């Protein structure tokens, strides 16, 4: 192993991943425990302080800053009233004040059987006191006046605060770090000249054949980059593949037509096609109107392309990007016109339609791999291998998880739960 490679051994890489994770957590900052311990509520005086409304005892009211959020939220929780289990409680009223002795304002109510509430209207700059009262149906209807709350035990003070790291997403963070490390590691290996095996992808092997067919038949190639804008990764992947297809079309001197449904895609696709023609040594063959805008409307776009396919009968049609219900309308029309069709999308619900109607379909990840596969650039191929390492890790996790869950040894799946 060369000296240059030594520093990227898998062991060191894993260590780096762990260190990076730890560093990330430190930089992100463990949330400061700003929640104040609450004092338990003494409910023995509650009913005595009221004349017309009977309150039922509520014990152990706790207030604390809601964790892992952007601030402005306090969590109030309490133990069930002893009357709750007897069916006497109808509602819990929750009150808030900026001073222990009030005045209190009602911030919410929950039905019996619920023992917590999130106060989402707190200000990070203020401290609050909370008071929870349980009421039966009759008392809840009668309502409470602020003076009835005087003397009731309160919990607090507490103030809300924003956190610098959402610990509910720690698993996603670790997965991102691991995957990023794998990808960067494999890119380094690919750059150092290591040969990487990439499995054959039939749909991409057929790109040459599809462009060649259009050349032989003397007909157009249609390239449809989906119906979404440039903020969608699938559209970026589609436009990237367009560059490779345009280069081949320029070499074969075949007319490539790119109808788009978004103005920003129009601008980007034009640049990409123009560069591809220059790269192929045919800048003179590029015509700006090859890439043209139709409409932003989903079905208007599908209707326009269907019309062009029926009238102009292209030899080859590519569908690469994000598609919705228009996928089958486009693909079936293309199929009926006799064109060879290659599709690629990461929309799981549209994949069956493309598989049924197109000659070749790039399924999900293959769309994202297409650019690397067609260009054979080591850096891009390296990222594919890194992706495969991530896949291997997930496979191992699935096997371990299946065994642990099947035999009831440990709730493995909770490691992968993400709370939004």
């Amino acid at each position: 192993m060369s000296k240059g490679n030594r520093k990227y051994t898998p062991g060191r890489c894993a260590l780096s991943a762990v260190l990076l994770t730890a560093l990330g957590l430190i930089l992100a900052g463990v949330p400061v425990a700003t929640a104040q311990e609450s004092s338990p509520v003494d409910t023995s005086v509650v009913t005595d302080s009221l004349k017309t409304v009977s309150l039922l005892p509520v014990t152990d009211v706790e207030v604390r800053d809601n964790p892992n959020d952007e601030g402005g939220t306090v969590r109030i929780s309490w133990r069930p009233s002893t009357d709750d289990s007897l069916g006497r409680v109808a509602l819990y009223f929750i009150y808030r004040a900026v001073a222990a002795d009030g005045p209190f304002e009602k911030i919410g109510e929950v039905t019996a059987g619920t023992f917590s509430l999130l106060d989402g209207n707190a200000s990070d700059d203020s401290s609050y006191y909370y008071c929870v009262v349980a009421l039966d149906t009759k008392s809840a209807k009668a309502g409470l006046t602020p003076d009835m709350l005087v003397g009731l035990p309160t919990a607090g003070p507490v103030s809300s605060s924003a956190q610098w790291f959402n610990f509910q997403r720690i698993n996603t963070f670790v997965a991102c770090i691991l995957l990023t490390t794998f990808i960067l590691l494999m890119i380094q290996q690919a750059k150092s000249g290591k040969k990487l095996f990439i499995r054959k992808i039939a749909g991409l092997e057929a790109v040459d054949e599809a462009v060649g067919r259009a050349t032989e038949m003397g007909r157009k190639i249609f390239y449809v980059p989906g119906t979404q804008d440039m903020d969608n990764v699938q559209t970026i992947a589609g436009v990237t593949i367009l560059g490779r297809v345009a280069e081949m079309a320029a070499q074969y001197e075949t007319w490539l037509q790119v109808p788009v449904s978004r103005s920003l895609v129009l601008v980007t696709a034009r640049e990409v096609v123009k560069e591809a023609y220059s790269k192929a040594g045919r800048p003179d063959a590029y015509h700006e109107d090859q890439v043209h805008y139709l409409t932003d409307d989903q079905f208007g776009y599908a209707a326009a392309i269907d019309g062009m396919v029926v009238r102009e009968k292209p030899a080859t049609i590519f569908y690469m990007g994000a598609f919705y219900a228009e996928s089958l309308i486009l693909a079936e029309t293309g199929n009926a016109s006799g064109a060879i069709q290659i599709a690629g999308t990461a929309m799981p619900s549209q994949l069956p339609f493309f598989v049924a109607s197109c000659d070749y379909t790039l399924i999900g990840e293959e769309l994202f791999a297409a650019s690397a596969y067609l260009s054979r650039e080591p850096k891009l191929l390296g990222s594919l291998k890194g992706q495969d390492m991530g896949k291997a890790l997930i496979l191992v996790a699935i096997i371990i998880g299946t065994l642990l869950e099947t035999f009831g040894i440990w709730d493995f799946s909770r490691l992968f739960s993400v709370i939004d």
Partner: protein
Amino acid sequence: MRREVPLFITLIVGVVFVLQYFIPHYPFNRMNGWFSDWFSIVAAFAIWLGALNLLKISFMKIINRKSDWFYALVIILSFGLMVTVGFAGGEAYREPGTVFSWLYDHVYTPLSATMFAILAFFVASASYRAFRARNLEASLLLGAAFFVMLGRVPIGDWLTSFLPEGYRLPQLATWIMNFPQTAGQRAIMIGIALGLVSTSLRIILGIERSHLGSE
């Protein structure tokens, strides 16, 4: 510079977008909204590029009397009509009872609905091809589709009503959808997620840059 500036902006925005998912603190918690607003503003200005391009191509078709120039004329007239009626209607152009609203409800909506309705016929023709039992995989697909479709209609339940509860066609259809189908779907989703992360990383780090066009 033509590439460096977009690459730099991509790097900054990409990193910030990743960070804002993990950091709920200000200003990260607002950045997603800010960048989305900026994108909407840029896209709103860019719509004129598309509209002008559409008009230019259509006009050229008519002037050069290219084949199917009649369709280009329909595009220009429709475009002109909707824009004129929309601007003439003022701020309340979308209110019920306006000409714009009438055109929208009685021309645009039925046309869109017609295109969507065609999907039903295309599903039938695509299913016919997909479910032909040419090999083992296609036969399995055909079998699964047969049981799922039959299990989703009352006759499926009636046909297997003599079987004990839990072994009837509706339960079989549910089992196929919940287990083999979900497992396959999740495998694809995992691949897509990994591909998304990998592609995003390539774009953020500037390894993938062909979408930026010429130097």
